[in-house]
C-alpha cells in the first residue's frame, strides 16, 4: 500500500539488475542506511551497543557467510563456530604480533585466513554431500576447537587459555578493549556488515552466485552448462568462511573482548548461526539480517518483558525464553519453511498489490 510503482520503469539492464529495483525499496534502504550511519551512532549507549547492536551486527555477518554456503551453494555446514574461532584466533595472533597495524587490517586478514582454512575443510565437499558433508564440517568444528584449546601458541601461552583483546584502534579511534566507545565499536562492525552485505549481494546476483545456486539446485545440470563443481564449491567455502572469519574476529575483539574457545565458539554457536539462517531464510541476504535480529533480539525482548516488566523470577523467564524461542523456531519451520525472508516477500507482494488480494 505504500508502494507507488507507476512510472517506475527501467530503460537499461543496469537499472533492472540493481539491488532494489523498486524505487520505494531503494529509498527505504537509503533511509535505513542513513539512520544506521547518521543517527544511531549519536544516540547509542553501552547497553544498546554491547547487548543488542554489536551481537546483531556480528551475527548478521556470520549469517550472511553461512547463508552463502548453505543457502546459496547448498553445502550444509555445522562448522561455523569453528570457523569463527579461526577468525578470532587469527585476529588475536595478529593483534598481539603487530600491535601498531590498524584493526581494520587485522580483521580483514583474519577473514582471509579463515577463508583459507575454510577452503581446506571444503575440499571434502567434492566427494560428499548433504548429511555426510554436515558430519565432515562437524568434525572440523570439533577439530578446530580442540586445536585452539590444545596448542598454547594460539593463546600466547596464557595461564587460562583465554584470549583477551588488547586495545587497538582504527585511524586513532579505539575499537577494541574496554575503552572503546560504544559508537566506535558499533560503527566499526556496521561498516563490516554493510560491506559484507554489499559484497554478498554483488556476488550472489552475478555469475558467481548463479554458479553457486546452480550447484545447489542441481549439480548435474550445473556441470552440463560448464560449471566446474570444484571451483564453485571452494569459492563458496572461501567467501563464506571469509565472512564467518570476520564475524569471529569481531565477535572476539570488539564484542566480547575475551574468549574461551570451547564456550564461545562451540557447537552451539554453529547451530545458532544455522538457526539464524534457517529462520531468516535460506538464500536471502535479507533473511540473514532478519534471522540474526530475531535470535539476538528475541531473548532480550522476552527478558525485558518477563523480568523487568512483569517481575517474574529470572529462572522462570530463562526457561520460558527457551520454550518460546524453541516454539517459535518450530512454528516457523512448519508455517514458513522459507523463513522470515519469505514472510517479508509475501508481505511486500501484498503491499504492492494492495488493496487487491492477488
Amino acid at each position: 500500500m505504500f508502494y507507488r510503482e507507476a512510472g517506475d520503469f527501467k530503460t537499461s539492464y543496469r537499472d533492472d539488475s540493481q539491488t532494489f529495483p523498486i524505487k520505494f525499496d531503494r529509498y527505504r534502504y537509503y533511509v535505513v542506511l542513513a539512520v544506521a550511519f547518521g543517527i544511531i551512532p549519536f544516540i547509542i549507549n553501552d547497553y544498546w551497543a554491547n547487548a543488542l547492536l554489536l551481537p546483531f551486527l556480528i551475527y548478521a555477518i556470520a549469517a550472511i557467510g553461512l547463508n552463502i554456503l548453505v543457502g546459496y551453494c547448498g553445502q550444509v555446514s555445522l562448522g561455523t563456530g569453528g570457523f569463527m574461532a579461526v577468525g578470532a584466533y587469527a585476529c588475536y595472533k595478529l593483534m598481539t604480533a603487530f600491535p601498531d597495524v590498524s584493526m581494520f587490517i587485522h580483521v580483514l586478514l583474519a577473514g582471509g585466513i579463515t577463508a583459507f582454512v575454510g577452503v581446506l575443510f571444503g575440499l571434502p565437499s567434492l566427494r560428499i554431500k548433504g548429511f555426510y558433508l554436515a558430519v565432515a564440517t562437524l568434525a572440523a568444528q570439533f577439530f578446530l576447537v580442540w586445536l585452539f584449546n590444545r596448542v598454547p601458541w594460539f593463546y600466547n601461552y596464557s595461564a587460562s587459555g583465554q584470549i583477551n583483546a588488547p586495545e587497538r584502534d582504527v585511524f586513532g579511534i579505539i575499537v577494541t578493549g574496554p575503552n572503546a566507545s560504544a559508537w566506535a565499536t558499533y560503527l566499526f562492525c556496521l561498516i563490516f556488515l554493510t560491506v559484507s552485505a554489499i559484497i554478498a549481494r554483488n556476488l550472489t546476483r552475478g555469475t558467481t552466485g548463479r554458479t553457486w545456486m546452480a550447484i545447489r539446485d542441481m549439480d548435474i545440470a550445473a556441470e552440463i552448462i560448464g560449471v566446474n563443481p570444484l571451483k564453485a564449491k571452494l569459492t563458496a567455502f572461501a567467501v563464506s568462511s571469509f565472512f564467518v572469519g570476520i564475524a569471529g574476529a569481531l565477535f572476539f575483539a570488539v564484542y566480547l573482548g575475551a574468549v574461551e574457545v570451547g564456550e564461545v565458539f562451540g557447537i552451539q554457536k554453529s547451530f545458532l548461526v544455522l538457526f539464524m539462517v534457517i529462520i531468516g531464510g535460506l538464500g536471502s541476504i535479507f533473511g540473514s539480517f532478519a534471522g540474526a535480529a530475531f535470535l539476538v533480539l528475541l531473548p532480550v525482548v522476552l527478558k525485558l518483558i518477563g523480568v523487568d516488566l512483569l517481575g517474574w523470577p529470572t529462572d522462570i523467564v530463562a526457561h520460558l525464553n527457551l520454550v518460546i524461542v524453541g516454539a517459535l523456531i518450530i512454528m516457523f519451520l512448519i508455517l514458513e519453511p522459507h523463513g522470515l525472508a519469505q514472510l517479508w516477500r509475501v508481505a511486500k507482494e501484498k503491499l504492492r498489490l494492495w488493496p487487491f488480494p492477488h
Partner: protein
Amino acid sequence: MAQTQSGAEGVHSLPALLHRNATQFGDAPAYREKEFGIWQCWSWAETAKEIRAIALGFLELGVEKGDHIAVIGRNRPAHYWSMVAAQMVGAVPVPLYQDSVAEEMAYVLEHCGAKYVVCGDQEQVDKVIEIQENLHQVKHILYTDKRGMRKYDHSQMNALDDIMAEGSAGHARFDAELDKRIAAITYDDTCVMLYTSGTTGKPKGVVLSNRNVIESAKNSAEFDHLTRNEDILSYLPMAWVGDFIFSIGQAYWCGFCVNCPESADTMMTDLREIGPTYFFAPPRVFETQLTNVMIRMEDAGKFKQRMFHHFMAHAKKVGGLLLDGKSVGFADRMKYALGNLMVYGPLKDTLGYGRFRVGYTAGEAIGPEIFDFYRSLGINLKQLYGQTEATVFITVQPDGEVRADTVGVPAPDVELKIDDSGEIHYRSPGVFVEYYNNPDSTASTKDAEGWVATGDAGFIEEGSGHLRIIDRAKDVGKMADGSMFAPKYVENKLKFYPDILEVVLFGNGKDRCVAFINIDLTAVGNWAERNNVAYASYQELAGHPRVLETIRAHVEAVNKSVAADEMLSGCQVHRFVVLHKELDADDGEMTRTRKVRRGFVEEKFSDIIAALYDGSGSVSTTTEVTYEDGRKGSISATLEIVDAPVVPVAQHKVAAE
C-alpha cells in the same frame, strides 16, 4: 478561421516538427518500447535518424510521391516511424487495423491502391500475400518482426531493418532527393489517410492534411496545457484517428514521449510501469478495468473490503468536488487524504494511473457511475466528442466543468450548429479534406462552407453551453405507434451494468422493443463462482437460468427508468435473449472500434429476432463464425427467450398527449 495561415509556428508538416524536436531537444525521450525485458528508448535525435533511414529505404525501393503506404501492425515505434517516413518521401501513410480479416483488408488496400505495405509480423504478411493473389498491386512488403519470415520468397519482401540499412548505406545517392521531397511538403498536403470503420457500409478513407493534424494537435495541446514531459501509452489501434492524433499529432507537436507496450497481453502491466501522465481510452477500457477492480476486491478479506467500500463511498462524496477545485470541509479533506493513503493512492497506482494528469474517454457514452468512480479517485478523466472527419476534436470538457452527461464545450477554433432535425454540424481547421476517391460521400457530408454533418443528434445545454448527445441520428426511429425509438439510450442504460457487455435493441417500426444481450464473461463468471454456479463455457453460462434471471432484473430496472421518460417510454424491452456468442468484429457484427453494426446484426440473426416477436419460448439457431484466416466455422445453440416485465405506458401517453 485559419485557412490562410502557412503553418503553426512556421512548421508545415510532421517531418518538419520532427526536425524541430530533434534539434531543439534531441536528447529528450521520444519513443519507448518494452522489449527484451526493458524499455528500449529512443531520443528525438535518434528517432529522426531512424525515420530518415526508413525514408531513404523507401526511396531505394522506388516509392513515388503520392504513393500509398499501408501500415499494419501493433503499436510499435517502427510502425509510427514508417508513417512519418512515408510522409517524408511524399507518400501517404495508411494505417490499417491489424486484427482485420483478410477480406476487410483487401477492400482497403484495393481502395487506396497501396503499392507498399509495412507489416508487423508474419500474420500480417500472410494476409497481404493472400490478398495479393487477387490484387497484384502490392510492389513490396516490408515487415518488422523477422520471426518465421526466413522461408518466404524475398524478391518482393524485406525486413524493415534491412531496407533501413540499405537506405543508410546508399544515403549519398538519396540524401538530396529526400531533402527535396521534405521541402516540397506543403501545409495542405495529405498527412495521413485513415479508414473509418463505419457501422454501415464499406470503410471510407478520410484524407487529413498536415493542417488538419497540426492545428488540431496544437489547439488541443494548448487546451490541456500538455508539455513535452508527458508520457503516453500507445495501445489503441494505429488505424484509429484517436491514436494517430495522440501518438503522432500531439506527440510531435508537444514533443512528448510515446510508450509502446510489449504486447496486447502485457498492456496492463506496461501501463502500470509507465504510469502515463496523459491517457486516452474508449469507455470500454475503463469499464473493463472497473469490473476487474470490483471482482478483485470481492476476493479480498473482510477488513479490506469494508475499508475499500467505506473510503470509496467517501470518495464518491467529495472526490469529484476536490478534483473540480470546489470547497470541501476540513474533516472531509482529512478523511480523503487518509483514504488516499489507504485506498485511492494504491489503487490508482496498481491500475497505472499514479501519474495521471489528464485523460480522455471518447468514442462512446461512458456510464456516469464509471466516470464518477475514476474522477472520485482524483483521476482527471474527461470526455470529448469527436470524429475522424474532424481530426478528433469537436467538443472537449474543460477542467472544472466535467460532467458525465455532457461532452463539453466546442474545442478551440471549432464552430458548432444544430440543424432543424437536431443533427450536430461543425466547422474547424481539423475538418477533413475529402473521402478518398468518393466525391459523393464527401459532398453529402461536408458542405461548401466547410460544415460537416456528424450524423449524431444532440443539443446545446442552456446556460452551460455544453453539448449533449442524444443518439446517432440514423438510428433514431419511430415505433409502430409513432413514439420515438432511440436504441442507444436504452442500450447504454443496460450496458452500465457490469454483467452486461453489449446490447442491441430492435423495435424500429414495431410495436414493442426486443433486445440481444451479451454478458460480460469476467463479471458474470466471477458472480457464478461466488454463487456456486458451475459452468464450463461462455455459452453455458449465458444460458444459465440464474444468469437469465439476473439479466431480467437488470432489464426490469432499466424498463422502469425508461418508462419514466415520456418521450422514450415506448422503448422498454419486452423480450430479450442472451446471445450464445459475443458479438465480434471478425464476424462483421461490430466495427474494429467495437461499435455494433446494427443492420448487419439484424440481418444475421433475423431468425432470433423473428422468434422474439412471434412469442416462442426458445429458438434454435446456427451461427457462422469466421476465423482470422477467413475460414468459417459454425456454432449452434438453443436460446431461451425471456420476457421482461414492462411498466404499462398507456397512462403516460394519455398524459403526454
